[in-house]
């Protein structure tokens, strides 16, 4: 009989696009970087439009020390941005999730909340920013309200849609074990909706972050958006690009964090 290791291994069934794409992505990133390096060092693009990677790195070092226009260090800008986005995001989670759940389980609540949410949801936050500024001024309140509104709609929609993930059998089973209506909502519907709520949180924090940077560009004395805008006024392209990279990296870290939270809180997602 043939040795086991001599038998050729074959692949099982597969669907299109299956397998890891990490290596290909890594090659893409390296290739873009090499292209950037070549374009700047070989003089294909003027330094004003695209500085060399080294200059971006130097901009990052001096920004860390606060050696840029405005005199505030990068960590200070970052801290302000994070405080704004997270305070607004948590306020939105605390209010939008209950509203979404209520919209899912109550005809009355759905009737009340559906028109205002559906009306403002597709509006770009920058379109109503001027109104927010007129109402609340240009200080922190206005920014937090703007980000809050940007986070609220996707969260409420996700919680409302999540209510539909509960099966009628789960609800009936709970009732026939003596659960009250409130217990069914809290112990059956909310956990069943949790996977969708967490997806909504991922989307909402992304919305919040994009809105934040835009809001800081309009009115702020600190924050990543303000740092980038200020640098552009002085034609400091290196700081602009460095700022953009920082904003992108932070957004990516948010998403990694949310995915981690997701795998911890809803390990059953997609499996039951």
């Amino acid at each position, binding site marked *: 009989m043939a040795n086991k290791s001599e038998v050729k291994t074959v692949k099982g069934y597969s669907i299109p696009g299956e397998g890891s794409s990490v290596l290909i992505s890594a090659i893409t990133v390296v290739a873009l970087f090499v292209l950037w390096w070549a374009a700047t060092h070989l003089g294909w693009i003027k330094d004003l439009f695209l500085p060399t990677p080294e200059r971006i790195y130097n901009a990052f070092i001096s920004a860390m020390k606060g050696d840029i226009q405005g005199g505030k260090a990068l960590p200070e800008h970052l801290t302000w941005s994070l405080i704004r986005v997270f305070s607004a995001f948590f306020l939105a989670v605390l209010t939008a999730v209950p509203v979404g759940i209520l919209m899912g389980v109550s005809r009355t609540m759905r009737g009340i909340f559906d028109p205002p949410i559906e009306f403002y949801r597709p509006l770009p936050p920058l379109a109503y920013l001027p109104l927010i500024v007129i109402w609340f001024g240009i200080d922190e309140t206005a920014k937090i309200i703007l980000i809050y509104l940007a986070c609220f709609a996707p969260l409420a929609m996700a919680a409302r849609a999540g209510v539909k993930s509960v099966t009628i*059998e*789960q609800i009936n089973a*709970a009732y026939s074990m*003596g*659960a009250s209506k409130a217990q069914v909502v809290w112990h059956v519907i909310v956990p*069943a909706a949790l996977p969708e709520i967490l997806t909504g949180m991922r989307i909402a924090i992304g919305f919040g972050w994009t809105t934040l940077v835009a809001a800081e560009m309009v009115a702020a004395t600190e924050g990543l958006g303000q740092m980038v805008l200020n640098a552009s006024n002085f034609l400091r392209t290196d700081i602009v690009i460095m700022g953009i990279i920082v904003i992108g990296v932070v957004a990516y870290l948010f998403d990694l964090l949310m995915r981690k939270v997701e795998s911890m809180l809803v390990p*059953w997602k997609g499996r*039951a």
Partner: protein
Amino acid sequence: MIGRGKPLLQGHILSTLEIKNLSVNYAGSNGQNTLALSNVNLIMNTGDFVVALGASGCGKTTLLSCIAGFMQPSEGTITLDGKPVHGPGAERGVVFQKHALMPWLSVVENVEFGLKMRGVSKAERHSIALDKLKLVELEKYAHYPIYQISGGMQQRAGVARALASDPAVMLMDEPLGALDALTRAHIQDLIVELWWQTKKMFFFITHSVEEALFLATDLIVMTPSPGRIEHRFKLDFSHQFIECKDSRKVKASPEFISMREKVLSLIHDGQAEGEA
């Protein structure tokens, strides 16, 4: 006959479920109503294993939903120990075909769920739940997540969960319908053992003739349009199993086979009639 509510020898309470002139008329969207159940009468006592057998559309699930309290009948009454049934309640445990366990809870937490909702202390409900899991041979999997155990184990967990509330009636809506034949036969044996040990009243729905004959002490054969009870049989194949513990022997006996053919032809004739 022993009176209502009087304890039996083992400390069990004798209960009676009475269904009188039950009819259910579903309102259709096009104005055409469907008479899902027509004038159903049935009396069940503690220790009875009633199996409702019939093709799809014969109203057996509607009947179970009415007993469980998930729906209100158009006409007629259901009483448990003289008290009319209004809405679901813990004295009527339900086992569903699927999708009824809560994947965010472990096996034992699922079994504890009803007790928790009714305010039973943590230690007490945990020990009750482990006890019920032992009855369905699942105590080793108590702390597994639901999505990591097989379909057969999930159904056993569902049975344990219904038993945890110590209901007077166990309502089972095709609990084995989605399982493979071997698992199904194994759990059938287990259910007979459970019924024998707990002495509860079981109401079990199936469309498998063999399953119905094996489990039932009282078999009702239902036919569609309108859904009604067409035939009733008293059976004792489950008692035979309790004595010999060999379900294949019971199912291979000449009486079982002739009964199976008899019921199959009844169902077949009923269907031909309905389609004609």
